[in-house]
């Protein structure tokens, strides 16, 4: 078995299993804590509030944009760029097709380059702010930095492996992907899923009051 076979085979299966199992464990663990039913008569719908809360916070409020524009640009750039790379890069679609049989049109090479540049720029802005901004410095911990660096390395090795001409580069990319998958459910990277619980909880609570913060 070559190193590439290992990182794309047994190690990937193990990493994916840990990602799914630990991720579900964490989400279910949060939900299992439970909460008491709200006895106050509702003025609005908690269910509608849950959805509104989730959708509303995708869009930053203009009132604060003057002071948070850098974070908004960095955050949106990184997340949108990463989403496009993850689901529309030709090698990723081929990889997913190998396991699921599902396929869809890939980005052209120039599209990949633009998405990668936007994602890198966004991630770097967010990371630089972690140590250059006094507020971010105050609240950041090791998990924030490790999560950022792991994501950066996954993206960087992915770009290096884009040509798919050097086996070692592809294997390196897969190695970091596996490490990232294992780290993900134990870290703050889980915000990709817990965000919906958080926004939903606030949205439902405010929704009962007839508000949409």
């Amino acid at each position, binding site marked *: 078995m070559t190193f590439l076979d290992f990182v794309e085979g047994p190690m990937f299966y193990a990493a994916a299993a840990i990602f799914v199992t630990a991720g579900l464990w964490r989400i279910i663990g949060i939900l299992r804590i439970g909460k008491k039913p709200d006895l*106050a008569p509702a003025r609005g719908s908690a269910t509608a509030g849950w959805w509104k809360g989730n959708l509303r916070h995708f869009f930053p409020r203009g009132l604060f944009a003057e002071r948070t524009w850098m974070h908004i640009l960095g955050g949106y750039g990184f997340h949108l760029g990463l989403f496009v790379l993850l689901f529309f890069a030709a090698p990723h679609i081929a990889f997913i097709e190998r396991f699921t049989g599902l396929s869809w049109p890939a980005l052209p090479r120039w599209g990949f380059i633009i998405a990668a540049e936007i994602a890198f720029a966004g991630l770097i802005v967010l990371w630089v702010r972690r140590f250059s901004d006094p507020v*971010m410095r*105050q609240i950041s911990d090791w998990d924030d930095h490790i999560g950022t660096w792991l994501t950066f390395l996954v993206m960087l090795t992915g770009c290096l492996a884009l040509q798919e001409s050097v086996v070692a580069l592809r294997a390196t990319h897969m190695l970091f992907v596996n490490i990232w998958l294992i780290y993900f459910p134990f870290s703050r990277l889980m915000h990709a899923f817990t965000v919906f619980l958080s926004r939903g909880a*606030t949205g439902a609570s405010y929704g009962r009051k007839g508000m949409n913060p």
Partner: protein
Amino acid sequence: MTNIAITTLLDQTDSDIAAYLEACVHCGECAEACQFYESTRDPKYTPTFKLAPLVKAYKRHKAPLRGIKKIFGLVPDEVTEDELREWEPLIYDSCTMCGRCTLVCPMGIDIAGTIRKVREGYAAADIVPDGLKQARVNVEKTSSPMGVTPKALLAQIKHQEEDTGLKIPVNVQGADYLALFSSHEIMASPEIIGAYARIFEKAGLSWTISTEAYEATNVGVQIGSGPLAAKLVQRVVDEAERLGVKYVISPECGHAYGAIRWAGPNLIGRTFDFEVLHIIELLDRLRRDGLIPAGKKDDRKLTLHDPCQIVRRGGLLKEPRRLMDDACSNFVEMPGAGIANLCCGGGGGVSANLRAEELRTKAFGVKLDQIDKLGGVDAVVIPCANCRGVFEDGLFDLDRELEVIGLGELVAETLADDPPKPAK
């Protein structure tokens, strides 16, 4: 002491709070919505940073996957008493639980609601500012944080009867509405009692004030003591149900409304036999039902302050604005008015906390800047007695002059002179 605090913090952590703690990405956006940070630029006032004791306790004792993390030494140490005390000013002095940070949070985290839970841990361990401790002592003696007794209430009612020429009903069995007031209103602006008497007379309402339950202020909610908050709500519920009223009117006081309307049934563990209405909600209903038609408008340049617990966290956004539109011809809105409006700087018990006075005045300065941007405002209409008190103190400290008035008073002053409609 520390164990009680930690146990209570963990008990307070339900799945919503856990979701908040798990979702925070440490982006720091919340600082930009917090006027304590805005007025000091000190990073320690970043809202999410204030939650640190709860975050530590949760990660160590309650978070999913903590067992695996413990193997690798990745769970935090136990929260210490020193840490709890170090964070106390952040939790009580620099957070009014205004909830503005939630608006800017990309994760939608209700930091204000979480601070309320953290205060439960602090109150259980009795790590509470002296000002709030004194308010608790007063409440236990008289049911009022300012020590307002039934005798003092009756004296103020008598004065208002003389001023208005109206009989103000007291302890009337079978009345439809039971009106509550805050201590601040009874002692500092008793004319609000007369204003309501005039409005209710015009609307033909059957209402009463009770000498057993007149105080709406709930110090338990401010301190973070669930048991005390429940006791204060129960007192009102018992009296309202004894009198057989259909409605309890929460006064122009922000947290009092949240305490009885939204938290009340959950605090005492059952629904009420009556409906809770905020006075603004009631006035808006009476106006729309044609029972209190508006008369000549106030033509001064007026703006409206949105008390956080009534508007952003209470759900009453349109009602005060409809009343303002009816009552004045030159109503101007502040930037971010409504759901994103700035706090007065003294909610959530901060105004009762002497230690926080300097910080509160700085935070109020940000609020004042918001009003100054409008230019030439003659008066600010404030439907919350606590906010009014903070405005008056802040204006005095900053050597500024600006009239502050209650919305109920404004409505009373601008009622039409036509004859009242028959009672419903």
